[in-house]
């Protein structure tokens, strides 16, 4: 199969929750590479759209393509194997396991199904070095032995990103990675996102408009489950429909 030009393509994608159309007939193509932000007022359908892409639940109608594959009905673990990684808005880690174990579980997921899976965890040099590398990337090497649930909020959010990096996915879906972070934590995490964006496609849902404007290649604005506008940060800033949707306007 020849490599597709897009990371995701959706055709007439809809998801209805008891009559409410959270995502309503969205057809769009998300190009490969770059940071692709999805913004919109609360209830615009950002997280639902994310959940449809990652396989959290199936769409009510429509089709989702990922790099040439129709993934509409694939379960989440099959999508992860294709190279889609996702982080969660509400921190979703293995709380009682160590930080190191959390990341190693993410790294070794790529070996799932092989017979070596029954061999003891020692003598897994490549897994350990990759784990150490990710721990360094997310700045958690010093707390690797701590139990994940005991980390600070900001560190847990970074671990969340580390888990997504484990399989080295082509496409990362980051759902509000900066939620609840202090300014210093935000700065470090933005720097991390920019670093991992190299050679990958990042889909970003984020409320921090300044960050979105600063790091996005393109921005897709959703409103009431539909695409309101797509464009570069400058184009979005200048878009009147977007200005109206946000009432106060985008500074």
């Amino acid at each position, binding site marked *: 199969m020849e490599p597709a030009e897009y990371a995701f393509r959706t055709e007439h994608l809809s998801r209805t929750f008891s009559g409410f159309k959270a995502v309503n007939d969205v057809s769009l193509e998300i190009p490969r590479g770059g940071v692709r932000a999805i913004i919109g007022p609360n209830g615009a359908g950002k997280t639902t759209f994310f959940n449809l892409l990652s396989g959290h639940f199936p769409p009510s109608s429509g089709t989702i393509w990922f790099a040439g594959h129709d993934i509409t009905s694939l379960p989440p673990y099959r999508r*992860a194997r294709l190279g889609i990684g996702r982080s969660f808005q509400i921190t979703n880690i293995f709380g009682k396991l160590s930080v190191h*174990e959390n990341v190693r579980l993410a790294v070794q997921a*790529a070996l799932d199904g092989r017979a070596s899976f029954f061999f003891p*965890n020692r003598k897994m040099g490549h897994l350990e070095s990759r784990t150490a590398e990710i721990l360094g990337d997310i700045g958690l090497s010093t707390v690797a032995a701590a139990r994940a649930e005991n980390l600070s909020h900001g560190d847990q959010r970074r671990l969340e990103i580390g888990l997504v990096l484990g*399989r080295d996915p082509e496409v990362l879906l980051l759902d509000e990675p900066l939620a609840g972070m202090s300014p210093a934590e935000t700065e470090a995490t933005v720097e991390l996102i920019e670093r991992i964006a190299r050679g990958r496609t990042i889909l970003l849902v984020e409320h921090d408009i300044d960050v979105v404007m600063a790091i996005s290649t393109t921005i897709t604005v959703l409103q009431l489950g539909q695409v309101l506008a797509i464009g570069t940060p400058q184009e979005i800033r200048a878009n009147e429909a977007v200005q109206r949707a946000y009432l106060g306007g985008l500074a």
Partner: protein
Amino acid sequence: MTPGTRPWVALLGVGAAFVVLPLVMPGGTLDLYPFAGARFPVHAGFIDLATTILIFALFALGFNLLFGHTGELSFGHAMFFALGAYSTALYTRGFDVYAGPVHLVFAGASNAAAALAVSLAVVALWAFFIARLIVPRSSGIYYSMITLAFAQVIYSITFHWGDLTGGEDGIQGIDRPRLPGLPPNWLQDATHVYIFTAVVVFVAVAVLFWILNSKFGSVLHAIRENKHRARFLGYDVDKYRVNAFVLSALFPGVAGWLWTYFQQSINPDAGSIDYSGRVVMMSLLGGIGSFTGPMIGAFVYWDLQNRVSGLTKYWPAAIGVVFALFVIAAPSGIAGIFADLRRYGVATALRRIFSREARYHSDVAEELPAHRIGD
């Protein structure tokens, strides 16, 4: 401690415990409470109590692969114990019955290894069938209830299909096998039965230890902690849950095989709710979050039962009270108390038992990473 030493230390400890175990039994040379000496209700002789403990330790360890390590509670694990035991009994004794129009007949044979293979095949098939049925459809209390229902199916077959299973009376007079390289009557001696059991259980413990310390085992822990996240990392979670269920059934199957040879008889009790419940109690008493916890629990349960049953016929009530106290005050079991003592010292460990706050923050699964290899 450097990586790689701990598993051998742990297994050496288990081996040493198996050697000492018969000696600390009531009437043994090192009896801990000679004054409270009671009689063992099933057989006379302390060595038989030690054999019983080891067989149930294996049963509980297998059960805890599912409960403590994968986070799924089966209320029917005695069905696998019974399937292993009955398969061995029927293989040894043979059968000649009609299942509807089908004539099932087998003359019986005495090969212990073949009996084990047959037992494990039967257990694995039944466990796989159940797991494939319930894993994609249920979790939590519904999962537990369905395992209970399937256990009742096995129980009712052992109880009512008298032509095959001997019904309520079960099957008696099952010959112990001749072991290769040993005199024909070697297994007639209670001490030899204990040695045979200890060797088998030790090997099974080592296998289980290996499994839990493999990548496979770490995924079970991940599933226990957060199924949802494990899925999004790319793990086929339901496949792991099925495999965990089958694996955790095989160990009780081996225990059932040993039980038949030990008792030389088998009856429907082996697959009863009572036995399924006991193994839950043993695991919780000992500590479901620790690898050795269920073994400790099996020891405490049987030792307690034996001593208390010599004093009063209300012994189940006494065990019930001890069990309730543990669940309330020390949910991570005896192994959890030991871990607290090592980590915090006596004062804090005691405070954790008696303080409500510490209790609320403690967790049954909290000791799990402590036994991991190389961490």
